[in-house]
């Protein structure tokens, strides 16, 4: 049913996104799908990497490591942005097209009052893409 799963990854918050990584791995095995891990990084030095190239390297290593766990083919895609916090949704929607993903598995936070002002990224992505979206809540 799904051939290519896109998994947006925040390398700075691996613990928070762990459930979505597991869900993605299970679905990849079940549907025999390829998994593409996507990271959006600032061009400026950050907590994960000091250059976008270092980020790309770390993301690729992460993807390979995850591939060993679920055994499906993996790839990684690092996208640089001047203002990643503001452009995350646009960037992910674009990436879905360029990758050709038919399913996106991404982490999201539990609904809270702030969503009215700043809607969750996951729900915004779902509004704007034709691909199926699976939003995974953090562990309770």
């Amino acid at each position, binding site marked *: 049913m799904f051939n290519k799963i896109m998994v947006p990854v925040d390398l700075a918050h691996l613990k928070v996104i762990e459930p979505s990584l597991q869900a993605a791995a299970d679905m990849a095995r079940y549907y025999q799908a390829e998994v*593409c891990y996507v990271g959006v990084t600032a061009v*400026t030095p950050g907590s994960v990497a*000091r250059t*976008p*190239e270092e980020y790309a390297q770390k993301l*690729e290593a992460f993807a390979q490591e995850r591939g060993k766990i679920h055994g499906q083919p993996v790839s990684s895609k690092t*996208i640089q942005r001047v203002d990643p916090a503001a452009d995350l949704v646009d960037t992910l929607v674009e990436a879905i097209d360029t990758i050709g993903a038919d399913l996106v598995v991404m982490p999201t936070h539990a609904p*809270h009052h*702030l969503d009215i002002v700043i809607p969750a990224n996951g729900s915004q992505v779902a509004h704007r893409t034709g691909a199926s979206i699976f939003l995974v809540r953090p562990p309770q």
Partner: protein
Amino acid sequence: MANSVRNDQPKAPAAESEGIPSPDGPANLIDTDYVIGQDNIATSKFGVPVDLHSVVFSVSSLVILVFVIITLALQEQVAPLFTGTFSYLTGNLSWVFLFGGNVFVLVSLGIVLSPLGKVRIGGANATPNYGYAGWFAMLFAAGMGIGLMFFGVAEPLSHFSAAFEGSAGAPLGGAAGDQQAAASLAMAATIFHWGLHPWGAYAIVGLSLAIFAFNKGLPLTMRSIFYPILGERIWGWPGHVIDVLAVFATLFGLATSLGLGATQASTGLNYLFDVPNTNVTMVVLILGITAVALLSVVAGVDKGVQRLSQVNMALAFLLLSFVIAAGPTLAIATGFFTNLGSYLTHLPALANPFGREDAGFVHGWTAFYWAWWISWSPFVGMFIARVSRGRSVREFLIAVLLVPTLVSVLWMTAFGGTAIDQVISDGFQGVQNADLDLKLFAMLGQLPLSSITSFVGIVLVIVFFVTSSDSGSLVIDSITAGGKVDAPKPQRIFWAILEGAIAIALLLGGGLSALQAASVSTGLPFTLVLLVGCYSLIKGLMSEPRSVSKAKGA
């Protein structure tokens, strides 16, 4: 030097798998164990996710709170203190500002001409994030903005009057009784204040930050410039102090300008539409400006700040073209070159820091401007650094130093030249007699379609403010987040709102100009910071490989 920069080439990406950008080529990362964000507190305990540098955020918020309370509560006691400090600085230490300003310009020009200009920001193969139009619009909107509207007519005319009368505040002793000489001197002095020197300060801060962030891998905060001097100590208190100072200068610089800008816009609205020039109007204006700035910071650099800056540039260009076409077109066209010439002729004398005989001019104008530009430099420099990855150092300096200087010459020639021409040729005294914040409108009033152009003028004042306010909030947010630019959005919303709130509090409670004096006083410590920056910049650039390939402007 104990903590020298090591030759540590970044490794090339392991695999060229799909989507990984090609490596940006050789650069020279600084070897440090510091992890960006290691001193941050990240929590969403209070229902709002935050990620803040524990010391810089708490100390700067506290300092800001205490300052606002003191300024409001003890106005009569502290106002003379702030203004006294400021007039002491500009009166007695004006040579420090002038000397520093000259160093910044000479270092920048020296780098343009030297082989160091070939270094590329972000590594030898980095490509620019923005096209020329968007990039230049952001540089200009952040750097000059409001002052061009406020002083474009007022300053040349003030110098002209002073020089013609040969009064104490005249530049270089003035030219009593000689209208042509007085006009030429007035334009030279104005362009001096809006030309190479302010942009030299911005260029030094911007370029040092860009090199230390994009090529050396240090966080995008002021403290990073000090690495060649302080080494690992920049992560401790010396670094905290530098960052807190930068937050202070930026926030109060913005808040006081926001207040003063609201005053000008309100005066303009009163002049044009008889809107009552009251506190209510000004508070509504500040709320409006803050609301638009909020939308812009939430939309981010690309969709918010960049687009607004372009709107801003387009409007400014329209108004400029109108003044050139409707004003004395030929005089402006020839004036551009003669003013540029008289600027260059008078430049050595105007920039001389020692033994000046026109003390009134140096203390009252030049030293004030230099303190003002330098106290704005952390904000403007950090913002222009952030959007300049992929440009070569030479390209950066030409775009930040030389192009804006030419634009300023043109702007001042058009606005100031037209106003002076009205006095000399038409004998019109209206602009000369108008209040400072009405001079622009009085000048436009002599040209056709004045109700439309004055309205465009007011809109421009407001848009210039929005573009300073939004980029300023982004800068403060990244300094107080320890150099992280991807911290949660509510933080930048917080700073944008705080800026508006402080402006309103000071406007209603009084103390706007006292605090402006206080924030401009931070110009002195920053002059020293920038002098260190010159040293660090040259040292940092020397250790960078020169770019071989020329990346295309997007």
